[in-house]
């Protein structure tokens, strides 16, 4: 199941709501969270089994293995198990397919990628690593670990939640009006990002750079900028929905995005983009390798390894490795240029402004590597991007620009303008003067309008799975 789906939104969620209320009532009479947790596990497994009924066995096996090995103190074995599973199921076709073809010409390897495997294996690894390093204790109850790993809001596309972050919440949690209001707000915001922005932008992307290579530089630029916005709205929309649903259920998940395109440097970008993944690689790869405190060659090695792995995590294709390497090199460059700055930015104000602009350009160019998994098409795209030139009557470009002008403006503003700060300002200076009922009605009406618009767009739309569920 995916979040941006009518059945999920308007059948699954109401059923879950009813079941949770009933479970809460039962739990309130007998103390504890047992029934609520059981309901959540049941719905999470149903959510996963909806599209992956066979691979739910792999998921359950993964949980049991993790639980048993952590209890036995064999965390290393568990980590190896998960890495092997990841390599086999995610990278098997890429790594072993050519070998099979060489050994038996005409045959091809076809291993199905179980949805969410990249996320739930990472959560399992993080749990095992934390138990091993005594950051947390092994969970004696299998059901608790099952809930931690399979909880549906974060099961298939994150955020990558650490065990310690929700350990207490699995034992005891309360849901306040504020939690529900905030949760609903995040869910609707996420849905709107996905359906109203990302899916509409994806049409421009497909048209300009997806179906065929662009013909001119403006087409390439517009296509790439739209993809940069699409992937942000798509993924951050998913994360918003996951965090919102978690909040409504009484869980506080870590944030995954913090206005990444408003970063001041590439280093800063990776502190704001897919933060839970960055945190994972920092804590479980980069620091164990020696981090940034080792000698220069070791630091270079550590950064390159970490970022190549980060890139490769995104998909079983060599372009992702290249994408990671690209960022690794950029990070090394920043480190070399501005080693005394925490954010890796120039000391002078003008330099900082320039570097901020250049960072945006470099990040967007990086999405070009990310988008094309065919190196020939990637090369063709960059050739057009840099040498395609401008045609006086580029009707295709002009048409896309004008037909989507408002969508592009809204997208660019939400990506590159500090709207959170502006909203806070409006809230403090204007909304605060309104009576509470007026604020409630205005916010409710706006959220309802977004919900209705997103629902309208979902009807009859081609199914657009969230991009990150592929990884």
């Amino acid at each position, binding site marked *: 199941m995916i979040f941006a789906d009518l059945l999920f939104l308007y*059948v699954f969620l109401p059923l879950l709501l009813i079941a949770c209320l009933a479970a809460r009532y039962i739990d309130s009479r007998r103390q504890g969270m047992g029934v609520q947790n059981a309901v959540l596990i049941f719905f999470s497994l149903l959510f996963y089994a*909806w599209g992956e009924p066979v691979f739910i066995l792999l998921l359950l096996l993964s949980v049991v293995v993790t639980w048993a090995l952590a209890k036995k103190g064999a965390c290393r074995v568990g980590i190896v198990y998960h890495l092997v599973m990841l390599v086999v199921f995610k990278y098997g076709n890429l790594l072993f397919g050519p070998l099979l073809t060489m050994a038996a010409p005409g045959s091809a390897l076809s291993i199905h990628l179980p949805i969410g495997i990249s996320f739930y294996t990472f959560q399992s690894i993080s749990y095992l690593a934390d138990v091993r390093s005594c950051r947390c204790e092994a969970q004696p109850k299998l059901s608790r670990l099952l809930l931690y790993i399979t909880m549906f809001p974060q099961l298939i596309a994150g955020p990558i939640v650490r065990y310690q972050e929700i350990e207490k919440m699995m034992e005891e949690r309360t849901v306040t009006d504020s939690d529900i209001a905030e949760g609903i707000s995040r869910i609707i915001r996420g849905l709107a990002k996905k359906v109203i922005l990302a899916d509409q932008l994806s049409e421009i992307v497909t048209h300009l750079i997806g179906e065929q290579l662009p013909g001119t530089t403006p087409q390439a630029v517009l296509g790439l900028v739209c993809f940069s916005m699409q992937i942000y709205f798509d993924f951050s929309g998913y994360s918003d929905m996951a965090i919102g649903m978690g909040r409504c259920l009484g869980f506080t998940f870590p944030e995954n995005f913090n206005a990444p395109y408003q970063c001041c440097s590439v280093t800063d970008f990776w502190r704001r983009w897919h933060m839970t993944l960055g945190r994972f690689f920092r804590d479980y790869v980069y620091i164990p390798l020696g981090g940034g405190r080792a000698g220069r060659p070791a630091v270079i090695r550590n950064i390159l390894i970490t970022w190549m792995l980060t890139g490769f995590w995104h998909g079983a294709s060599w372009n992702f490795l290249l994408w990671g390497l690209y960022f690794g090199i950029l990070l090394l460059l920043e480190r070399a240029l501005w080693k005394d700055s925490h954010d890796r930015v120039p000391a002078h104000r003008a330099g900082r402004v320039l570097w901020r602009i250049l960072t945006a350009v470099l990040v967007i160019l990086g999405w070009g590597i990310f988008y094309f998994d065919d190196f020939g098409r990637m090369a063709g795209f960059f050739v057009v991007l840099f040498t395609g030139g401008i045609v006086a009557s580029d009707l295709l470009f002009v*048409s*896309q620009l004008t037909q989507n002008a408002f969508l592009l403006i809204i997208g660019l503003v939400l990506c590159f303008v500090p709207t959170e700060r502006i909203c806070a300002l409006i809230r403090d200076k204007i909304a605060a003067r309104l009576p509470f009922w007026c604020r409630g009605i205005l916010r*409710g009406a706006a959220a309802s309008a977004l*919900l209705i618009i997103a629902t309208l767009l979902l009807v*009859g739309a081609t199914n657009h799975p969230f991009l990150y569920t592929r990884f």
Partner: protein
Amino acid sequence: MKDSRENLIYIAITGLAFMAIVFILLLGKRSTQSELERRELAEFPEITAPSLIRGEAGPAVSEWYADTVPKRDRVLNMAMDVRNVRGIRDTGEETIRFHNVKELRTEPEETAQVTAAPAGEPEKQPEKEPEKTPENGPAANAGASAGAENAPAAAAAGQNDTADAETAQTEAPAEPETTETASAVPEEAYDALPEEAFTVGSNGIIVSGSGSNTRAIMMYGGSASVAKHYAEVVSMYPEALPGVRVYCMVIPTAVSYYCPVQALSYTGSQLDQIRNIMESLSPAVTGINVYSVLGEHTEEPIYLRTDHHWAPLGAYYAAGEFAKAAGVPFPDLSSYEERVVHNYCGTMYMYSQDTAVRDNPEDFVYYVPRDLTLETTYINYTLSDGRVAAENPPFSGPFFQPMNDGNSNAYCVFMGGDAKITRVQTGVQNGRRLVILKDSFGNALPEFLFYGFEEVHVLDARYFTRNIVQYVQENGITDVLFANNVFHAGTKSTAAAYERFLKQ
């Protein structure tokens, strides 16, 4: 979110909106067909143990739920309205909006090979469902709602409506199987290019103009090499049908006459394609040039603005050219009663999803012979997954199927659609009997040929399952007219079908 009372109001309002949608979706009557998309909507899937294990059941239920929302067409229209505020829509008469239009490119020669099935070999059908592109999307799944409205003939004869559900479809010009594309050069330059260089793929839709001048145009695509094969197959007919006159009419579409100058570089040249076909025909086949005569009447409504078809008036001028070549009487329009379906909006609205097309409907005008008594016999096909599964017994019905104003299937006024064999006895006694082998563009032709032939038989290239030689002999046919739009003529399956008719 510090104020609890504010939060409660917020939760109440959003909760109400949410629950309202939940109840509408759960309790509303589920849609079963979409008139806008011209297709039957998904059916609730059969849940079996294998489908559950394969993981097909869950997504199929999700698809059914999303596909069959109550009042789907109304909701779709609202969604289009929302989508259309994404940008600047109307910039006056100079407006040109692109919908899936791409740059035309020269591809390496090897990509421009003929991919037609070898003679006599059945063409392999694609395994995948056709994607919902403007070219093949709604039309590929077309039929259900149109069939419901346009089945009087079948209903009158108590027929199974399966065929008519399909027959009412008005297919878009087919997308060519080859992936050939053309260089972005002015049309005049095509003559100087090697043959493969100007073969093009179907290339999206543009919407131009504003108000009552709004016009949606499908940019041209088609394969020169496949079209040449089409000409070769047509050229087999005179030999296979000795004594029968064979004609070939390749019908241009609106892009040939109404494409704004600025957008010309985004379409292939239909003139070159038609010339290519005509030059490749055997001398025994009479080529009917309708390109020129249509070009002389572009100020008149010879093409529909909101549909991918031509208008009956365009068919009238084309039929005149054919009648001239065939040497049969061809009275002027005063011999016909003009009938109008007002507020007609055709296929291009859903193909382009451009609300300007919907908001500027047109009149669909057709012509009924005043002083002829037509006896029309239909043999409907029962279709399964778009293919002929069975041929039903013959029955009589009207050639013209009345349509109400606003009916988006008005083009189905002729015979109610395509998936059938139609025989019209006109009452004329001149010993001339005509078979029209056609796609849906050919549906508008017969009405103007009833004065010239004592019988007119209409056979669709996509559905005819009999042997054409036998059919011609059994019915005493004297003239065979191939009438295909230029998209279809450049499509592999069309030539393959005509080749198969000689052997099946």
